[in-house]
């Protein structure tokens, strides 16, 4: 069988996908917003592939009341290697695009999809870890809880809202840009 060669337009689209993937490193991927009667302006945890932003100290200060362990960038080893994985993926995509090798592209798409699912699982794992390992010494005892990866939750006086942010949407778009040409070229 002759090696399937991708068209030039596909190569361009895949290149765009690679650029989007690389650029997503500079945008927040995920966040959680805390709103309470005395915090109408909201407190934020904003997660980038390599750092945390937002009102981390204040949220840690408040979380100690329910016995949650404090978190910081050091708590999450992913933040130190995630940028390299994503960067590498972007470069591979670019190389494969111009090798115009369909099989390699399909392989990368599979890696991409698995990586994405692993990422979601990892996030969920941390949410379970922080929400359920509450200290027995806490002044306010609450039932262990798992904040959703996406959507609303209520803890004491706070309503939290988890959401995907710019970087995640860019990754979503990048993935879509990979599927699109594969779908178009499925008959070849």
């Amino acid at each position, binding site marked *: 069988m002759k090696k399937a060669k991708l068209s030039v337009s596909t190569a361009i689209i895949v290149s765009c996908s690679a650029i989007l993937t690389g650029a997503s490193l500079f945008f927040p991927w995920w966040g959680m917003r805390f709103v309470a009667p005395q915090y109408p302006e909201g407190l934020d945890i904003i997660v980038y592939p390599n750092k945390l932003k937002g009102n981390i100290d*204040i949220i840690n200060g408040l979380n100690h009341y329910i016995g949650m362990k404090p978190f910081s960038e050091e708590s999450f080893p992913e933040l130190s290697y995630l940028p390299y994985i994503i960067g590498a993926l972007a470069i591979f995509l670019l190389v494969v695009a111009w090798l115009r090798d369909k099989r390699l592209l399909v392989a990368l798409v599979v890696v991409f999809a698995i990586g994405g699912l692993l990422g979601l699982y990892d996030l969920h794992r941390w949410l379970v870890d922080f929400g359920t390992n509450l200290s027995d010494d806490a*002044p306010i005892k609450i039932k262990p809880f798992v904040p959703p990866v996406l959507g609303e939750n209520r803890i004491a006086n706070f309503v939290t809202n988890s959401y995907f942010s710019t970087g995640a949407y860019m990754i979503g778009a990048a993935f879509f840009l990979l599927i699109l040409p594969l779908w178009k070229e499925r008959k070849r």
Partner: protein
Amino acid sequence: MKKKWISAISGLAVGVLASAVFFGDFSPKQPTSTASAKTNAEKVYVPFGKKDEYYLFASGGHSGQLFVYGVPSLRRIRTVPVFSLDSATGYGWDEHSKKMLGGYTWGDLHHPAFSETNGEYDGKYLFATDVANSRAAVLDLKTFTVKDIISVPNTSGPHCAAFVTENTEYLFLPTRFAVPLGNKYESLDDYSTKYRGVMSAVTFDEKAQKLHIAYQVALPPWSYDLSDAGKKISKDWAVVTTYNTEEATTNLEINASKEDRDFIVLFNWKELEKMVKEGKYDIVDGQKVIFPEKQKGGIYLVPVAKSPHGVDVTPDGKRFIASGKLAPLLTVFSFEKAFKAIENKDFAGERNGIPILRYESVMEREVNPENALGPLHTQFDDKGMAYTTMFISSEVVKWDPNTGEVLDRVPVQYSPGHSVAAEGDTVSPDGKYLVSLNKLAKDSYLSVGPSHPESMQLIDISGKMEVIQSAPVDPEPHYGQMIKADKIKTINVYPKDESNPDAVYNQKDARIVRKGNEVHVYGIAMRSKFIFDAKAKRPDVIEVNEGDKVFVHLTNIDRDEDITHGFAINRYNLNIEVQPGQTNTVEFVADKAGTYPIYCTNFCSALHQEMTGYLLVKPKQ
């Protein structure tokens, strides 16, 4: 055919016109949303979520404090301690404020003045003076806290200060009481020769946030009442009113009111500055002092109706207006005329070695509103119109400085001292609002017994003057400053200062260090605990020996808006505040053996009540 049409149309037109005249509604519309139709209640109501348009800083007089109000609501927002102790904020107990107060427990805060850039308020700093203990202070408006206080030698009671030059080059502190230089003992029989009314020129170093006396002027032994700096064409000049040019030494009520004329001191601070640079001064009590009878130039006297109070420069800087107090008239003087008279050396002799300008050659007009008595102080609006408080006839009179015409007047309750208009002493007043600072409230509010509050009244000056709000105020506003709210840029949390050796930003670093009989606590406050020694069995306990000198350096690591903690020790008579992110120090000698609970005084959280600890003082063996 054509004519028929014309007559038909014109007939129709006449009919429409007639019906319009008879049935048309030409009465003024009653729109519901324009400013003019607002009721007084709507004009002053600021609903939750909205903020006032202006900040009003009212001097707190002998409370030694500064009162911050919002305009138009006239809601009191905050009391800022300046010259007096204030346990609510720990002011006077923490090391910084204790040192600044220098052992004084009260002050008499008279005239607050904003820092200026090109004659406009820049919203960065506010200066204030203490008539009681001859001090000057500067507040940083990022935090609304006092940064520096200086004690001014050779002078006693800077009443008519502070006033600031157009670019905050100087703030001047003329004095109400004449005293001998160095406050030495001198017989009152030698009043005219040995006493002086010393005026101080103070500079502010913004970087170091320190006040500094640049030089002083040994003016004659008179009382200096109020003052204002020039603007635009008169920006290098300033004017100060005087009374007791009689040089009376007793019963001033009678004896300082004898002469028909007192003076306005007109001086050029650029010239005085030059004289100091050229070494034309004597050193007295460590200060560079200019003696006007020896070092001539730069200072002139303008005769004015006796015992004037306010003297205010018009926004265009062309005129200065003296308020008669005892004389029922306002005198409008011209800077241009004064400059010409000085140039032509058109003097009517000298007094105490200072040249006197002729009244007629400087005066532009006398304004005498009918039955208006006791003019004290003048403010201006956006059109340059003048508003003068009448203490005795209890009213505010609006008049035109260009023509002397009286335009409007409104009664106030009762006896206004000063008034303050929106940015009313800058080169571009805003108009809109004027607050009358009334000395008497009498029956205005619910009675609280014989001691009464003072009263502030908000007057809408956008059209015909009308009092639209009244608010009681603690003793005692003398003067105020009203600034557009968006000019003031505050911070909510102190920035981290990693170079501060007393600060602890990580709770694990909290520690207690002993050096001989000194104990240094480097602690933190957070919702809802103190940590003085992170490694101790009980991190919220300070244990010392009787007689130890204890320094508690406390950092509030809750870097969150409005989470202020307090730190008080039972029976040790001390309490300090740590604002979000701030590091503060309190120092005391543990001279009482025993057990003393420590607690957070500023309500911080649901577990505020639990935010406690102990000071254990081991008795001497």
